[in-house]
């Protein structure tokens, strides 16, 4: 039976040029940028042909910033100003940072996120991460020969809301249009699944430099569905280095070390760990600043022994993920290994024993996440035709809730809920005449609020006087496709409504982002206004293109007048966008956005109807 063809909503029927989109793996140890070129995902190397960018940023007193290999080469000489593994500090307070006493940094405890004192001033982890992202952005723009339309940035699946928000802030600070935050194991599953046409239940075991994720996915053609995810956002290859470092200090009976020696031995410890992947013994030698010489040998067997508890730490999340998925180890058809730390033989052995099958190592564990992110970026940018693309359904890793009387956490959205998701719950007043309520938003699985992560606090004021228990305050949690939460509260019993939207306290306020942008431009001597104008223009052009594409695809949903009005407004925005007043461009963009709301709603309704119609026809064909 011949079927009528209907184009997919959201994909413009009009031919458009290929949009430049990249996937970025912002890793603890190394970062990468990849893109899809001529249909194939490929990592973009630097001018020397190197794919990896070491995630190390060095600040100089004169404001110069070095990122990557140059910063890595001198890190032992200048430990306080050479920031490595900054990902571990994203969205974290000082008390959350493990082994802070063993780190060579000068920490400044700030409300919300820990900060670092450097020769160039106090830096937040967001700013440090933005430096890495800027280098990758420049690399991509140079290599692709144009401005990027957007980027997919990967995050560990087990990152909480604060860590995700911090990552998105860093990307915005680096001038990237974030198409999506994508979970790292999910990105790896895309790359693996497409390459191998995999179908069935797969596990992705992702042990990176600083984070551990385990995700269980159901793969079928055109579909990646995350069933459950778990992990430990403070477990990674760095911890194995740390164990070796502590062993060396003990073995060589070293006195307390200065920052330089600490960093030197840590680098040597990492080298020994990597050497032990293919050798039975590693020799660690170093000359410390006081002249002492360290010379010890670490056997592979001893290395396994001193890191046994770390390997064991990965088992709990694996069991939990399988239980949440309602599956046994025997249901898993393959285990994809991701992250440089999975090269360690003890990790390979533990995973093999747990799943009772050999892990899959046919992808480069350093690159697979960036490649998957690039493939997803290509789809999100609209470069793939309908039918060639795929659907990705991901989940939130940790439950979201609210503090109730007695310091208990009331879960509102349970972990492993498919996103986007919204859930509402009603709360009431405790005392007669209570006019305000304070809310504490938390994330985690534990019953007590003190054991969960505090995300935000806010107050709802102006509740009219009522008896205790009479007010009806409806708190709504909305998690978007990036896994980011927004919360609103509304008092509805008397018809009086008040609502408040909160941003997690660990995320940056818009004013902070603006200040950081200003700071970074003072150094770069770029003009803020030029940047604002450019961004407004890019956004406006993108919007005009999207609206015209939507009109071409689904204009039939509008009356002739409605259609003409939208066309006029799109043309008006296009005209304003060629001018030089960024505020006028923003205003015209907002006006067009408002004007298209009704049309957007109708397109979604029509899409749902077509989906069901398509299903019935498919049913007849069976």
């Amino acid at each position, binding site marked *: 039976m011949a079927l009528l063809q209907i184009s*997919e909503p959201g994909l413009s029927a009009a031919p458009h040029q290929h949009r430049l989109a990249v996937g970025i793996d912002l890793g603890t140890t190394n970062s990468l940028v990849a893109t899809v070129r001529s249909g194939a995902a490929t990592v973009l190397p630097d001018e020397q042909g190197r794919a990896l960018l070491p995630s190390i940023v060095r600040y100089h007193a004169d404001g110069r910033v070095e990122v990557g290999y140059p910063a890595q080469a001198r890190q032992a000489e200048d430990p306080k100003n050479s920031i490595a593994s900054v990902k571990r500090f994203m969205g974290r307070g000082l008390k959350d940072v493990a082994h802070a006493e063993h780190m060579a940094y000068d920490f400044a405890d700030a409300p919300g996120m820990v900060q670092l004192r450097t020769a160039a001033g106090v830096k937040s982890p967001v700013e440090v991460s933005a430096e890495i992202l800027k280098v990758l952005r420049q690399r991509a723009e140079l290599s692709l020969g144009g401005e990027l339309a957007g980027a997919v940035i990967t995050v560990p699946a087990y990152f909480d809301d604060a860590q995700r928000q911090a990552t998105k802030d860093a990307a915005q600070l680096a001038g990237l249009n974030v198409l999506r935050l994508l979970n790292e194991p999910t990105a790896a599953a895309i790359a693996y699944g497409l390459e191998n046409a995999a179908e069935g239940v797969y596990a992705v075991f992702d042990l990176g430099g600083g984070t551990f994720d385990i995700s269980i996915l159901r793969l079928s053609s055109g579909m990646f569905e995350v069933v459950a995810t778990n992990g430990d956002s403070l477990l990674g290859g760095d911890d194995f280095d740390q164990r070796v470092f502590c062993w060396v200090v003990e073995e060589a009976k070293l006195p307390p070390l200065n920052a330089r020696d600490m960093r030197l031995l840590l680098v040597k410890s990492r080298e020994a760990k990597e050497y032990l992947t293919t050798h039975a013994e590693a020799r660690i030698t170093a000359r410390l600043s006081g002249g002492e010489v360290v010379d010890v040998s670490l056997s592979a067997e001893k290395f396994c022994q001193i890191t046994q508890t770390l390997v064991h730490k990965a088992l709990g999340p694996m069991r939990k993920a399988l239980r949440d998925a309602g599956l046994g180890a025997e249901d898993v058809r393959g285990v994809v290994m991701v992250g440089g730390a999975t090269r360690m033989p003890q990790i390979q052995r533990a995973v093999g024993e747990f799943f009772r099958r050999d892990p899959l190592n046919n992808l480069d564990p350093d690159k697979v996440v960036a490649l998957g992110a690039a493939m997803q970026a290509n789809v999100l940018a609209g470069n793939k035709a309908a039918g060639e693309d795929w659907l*990705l359904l991901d989940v939130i890793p940790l439950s979201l809730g609210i503090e109730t009387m007695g310091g208990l956490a009331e879960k509102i959205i349970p972990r492993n809920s498919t996103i986007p998701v919204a859930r509402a719950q009603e709360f009431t007043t405790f005392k007669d005449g209570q006019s305000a309520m304070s809310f504490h938003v938390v994330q985690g699985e534990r019953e007590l609020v003190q054991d969960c992560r505090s995300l935000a606090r806010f107050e709802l004021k102006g509740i009219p006087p009522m008896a205790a228990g009479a007010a009806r305050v409806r708190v709504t949690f909305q998690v978007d496709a990036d896994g980011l939460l927004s919360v609103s509260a509304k008092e509805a019993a008397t018809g009086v409504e008040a609502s408040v939207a909160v941003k997690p306290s660990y995320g940056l306020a818009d004013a902070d982002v603006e200040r950081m942008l200003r700071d970074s431009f003072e150094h770069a001597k770029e003009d803020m206004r030029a940047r604002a104008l450019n961004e407004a223009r890019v956004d406006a052009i*993108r919007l005009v293109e999207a609206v015209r594409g939507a009109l071409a695809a689904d204009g039939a949903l509008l009356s002739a007048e409605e259609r003409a009005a939208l066309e006029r407004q799109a043309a008006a925005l296009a005209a304003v966008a060629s001018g030089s007043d960024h505020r006028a461009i923003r205003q015209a963009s907002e006006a067009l956005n408002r004007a298209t709301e009704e049309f957007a709603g109708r397109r*979604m309704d029509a899409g749902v109807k077509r*989906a069901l119609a398509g299903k019935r026809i498919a049913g007849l064909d069976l």
Partner: protein
Amino acid sequence: MSSHFELFGLAPAFAVDAAALDRAYREIQSRVHPDRFAHAGDAERRASMQWTTRVNEAYRTLKSPVQRAKYLLELNGVDVGFETNTQMPGDFLLRQLELRETLAGANQPEALDALLAEVRQEQRLLVQGIAQLIDDSKDYAAAAGEVRKLMFLDKLAAEIDVAYEKVE
């Protein structure tokens, strides 16, 4: 707004065709999901998020036997009163006490496996009974009582889940 069943083109019944539900869910998601609108304007991205949120909620409700039964009873105007009505038959409560004692005494994963299998079996029987009460005899009041029992067992299953973490 259409019901969750209408959304997926299904008849409003407790016995759902799981394959048809999955298929409709995927079809709709592939058209409204935010990934389809990542490069679109704000209005479309917002509409897409709202729709996808609604579709996810409807799917979650229809997938879970307890949620599906509660939703159907509400559609049929039955005040389920799960929060206020805690009256349960004596023999059921006795059986619950027994299961909870077993849980408290289980300190091996194998013991929990056995207990969980028992709970799953009782859940299956209840689900069969609820299907009969809602779809065939349309005895919604009796169904509400059985749904309450199922909720007890779901809670117990969640506690068994937590217990695994303690013994492992």
